[in-house]
């Protein structure tokens, strides 16, 4: 198809638009009073959301802080999609990455920053990578579906982290949290505004996106990954080791999620609370789909979802529960998954059911 590229960009945009439309209808329904009052309510809700996400320098910084892990979980899921594996476990990989990185960073008191920070990052990426590679290994060797295994690994990670921060890795306060990391392992700040601090994490996340772009489009490894995702049988026939590629893809995907967790720990909280995620792993799925698994697209999709997440906190004050963002995301994912629905809607698909 000649205009394939445009359709690829158009589908997520239309999906986002439809999702926002449905969300508006839901907000109109829960509003009170006559129709006019309900529309005022809707207007207030959205303007509060935009103000909360982009309305001031600290709001904008908060959006960028939210974006940082989202770029990475989006890359994690998107990279997996490229190889035909659905890594639904970015959540658990983030948790394991953050846990391992925090343990290292707490004990890094004697190391200078230029050693402590890179090593903490490596430890976090390794932990996330190994955690995901378990699922990759099981898929490659026994055919166990990665969706089930990564979800189970999420729950296992959650319980391990919970145990760690209440038990052996507690800071002694009794509330579930780890000790503070060594000062030398703290990521320096890029900007600050009032009480908001933006660390160098966003720079690292964008570098990661560029590296993944490079791997996917400029290396033979990226070619193999895409070949396996496109048609594993043909890839195997063409001499590509499919098992190895699946495990490697999962490991890279997990390492990206692990990096997301690490940056939360060394760039934002400076400790580990056992849970990180208000669903950042799942956010990664919508981001990968909106960004069409393209690293550059993923950065823009993260800005959108990060903005929605940040803005939803403000929207909550206007009386709309912030779960509306989860609803919006689910509609986007649903529409992008059934992209032919959107194409039919746009009359791009003349004959029904036929490519």
């Amino acid at each position, binding site marked *: 198809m000649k205009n394939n590229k445009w359709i690829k960009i158009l589908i997520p945009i239309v999906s986002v638009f439809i999702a926002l439309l449905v969300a508006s209808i*839901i907000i109109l329904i*829960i509003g009170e009073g006559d129709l006019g009052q309900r529309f005022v309510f809707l207007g207030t809700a959205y303007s509060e959301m935009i103000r909360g996400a982009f309305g001031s320098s600290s709001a904008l910084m908060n959006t960028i802080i939210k974006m940082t892990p989202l770029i990475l979980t989006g890359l994690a899921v998107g990279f997996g999609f490229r190889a035909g594996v*659905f890594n*639904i476990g970015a959540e658990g990989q983030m948790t394991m990455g953050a846990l391992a990185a925090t343990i290292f960073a707490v004990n890094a008191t004697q190391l200078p920053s230029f050693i402590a920070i890179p090593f903490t990052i490596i430890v976090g990426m390794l932990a996330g990578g190994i955690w995901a590679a*378990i699922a990759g290994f*099981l898929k490659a060797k*026994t*055919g*166990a*579906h990665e*969706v*089930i*295994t990564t*979800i*189970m*690994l*999420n*729950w*296992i990670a959650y*319980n*391990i982290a*919970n*145990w760690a921060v*209440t*038990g052996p890795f507690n800071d002694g306060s009794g509330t579930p949290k780890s000790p503070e990391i060594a000062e030398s392992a703290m990521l320096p700040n890029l900007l600050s505004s009032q009480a908001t601090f933006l660390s160098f994490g966003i720079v690292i996340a964008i570098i990661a996106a560029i590296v993944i772009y490079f791997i996917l489009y400029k290396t033979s490894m990226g070619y193999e990954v895409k070949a396996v995702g496109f048609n594993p049988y043909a890839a195997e026939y063409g001499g590509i080791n499919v098992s190895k590629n699946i495990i490697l893809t999962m490991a890279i995907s997990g390492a990206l999620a692990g990096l997301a967790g690490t940056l939360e720990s060394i760039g934002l909280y400076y400790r580990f609370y056992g849970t990180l995620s208000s*669903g950042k792993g*799942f956010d990664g*799925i*919508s981001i990968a*789909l909106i960004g069409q698994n393209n690293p550059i697209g993923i950065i823009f999709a993260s800005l959108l979802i990060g903005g929605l997440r940040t803005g939803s906190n403000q929207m909550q004050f206007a009386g709309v*529960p912030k*779960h*509306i*963002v*989860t*609803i*919006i*995301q*689910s*509609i*986007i*994912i*649903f529409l*992008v*998954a*059934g*992209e*032919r*629905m959107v194409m*039919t809607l746009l009359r791009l698909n003349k004959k029904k*059911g*036929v490519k």
Partner: protein
Amino acid sequence: MDALIAVLSTFTNPVFYKLTLSASTPLLFAALGGLFSERTGVTNIALEGIMLMGAFSGVAGSYIFSSPWIGLILAIISGVALSALHAYASIRFSANQIVSATALILLAQGLTGFLLEPIFGQPGSTPIVAKIPDIHLEFLGKDSFLYKMIGSLSPFVYLAFILVLVAYFIIYKTRLGLRMRAVGENPEAADTLGVNVFKIRYFGVIMSGVLASLGGAYLSIGELGQFSENMTGGKGFIALAAMILGNWKPKGAMFACLLFGMAEALNEQLQSNPQLAIPSTIKPLFNLLPFVITIIVVGGFVGKTRGPAASGEPYEKKG
């Protein structure tokens, strides 16, 4: 030694078996649901979301209409609605079934969280509502071991085990079942023989919605009498694992669910056993057991069991 005796004494306690049955119940509903869908060739990993929505709708119905039975009906309707969306996207539009189902899980999480405040006026969890009353089989003798084990349970529990037989009958002894199996194994051949592939698939997916929502409703209006956010906690996925372990057969799924249920019951009994006095800080380590077992099962058995050949593959009419 004392600890060992304490552990062993669990197995002589009828309550342990009762807990096993009740912990297996939500898994069994969902696993049978997954089975109906996969047998017709549509993967439905949205069971988790359908259960969650069912659990919520059940409580909402019971709260608004002060009748848990209306709650039950609402739960089933919610299950039909969610699964119909999945069916529509995957059958009519050949959507990626895994991604579409993920969207529905997220939709269920979003909707249930979102509606908590407008309906119940409080976030996080609902107030306690009327439950569907337990059944007491008093003819078994109130003090007998049997009565303590199976004599006093929610009607959902009995229903789940009866449905195993019903599912077996439908799938293996009726024309409909034969068609389901044909469509799941080889839709082209079934189509050639005049079977309406799409219709059969809609039936399978919507049945999975009905059954999984019953599993969810059991959790809320059968067991707890309350809904709390994300209360299904991965049970939909464990049910999928049970379906695989049970080799896509109703009886097999039942034994697999009993195994997972037993793991949960054992965990619960050990944690609450005063003689063992397990410190609360290591309880999370116990809680991860069912998930570890699931991974071992899925990883260890998947090569040895075989699902319907066309499961997960969209079907498009040629010509």
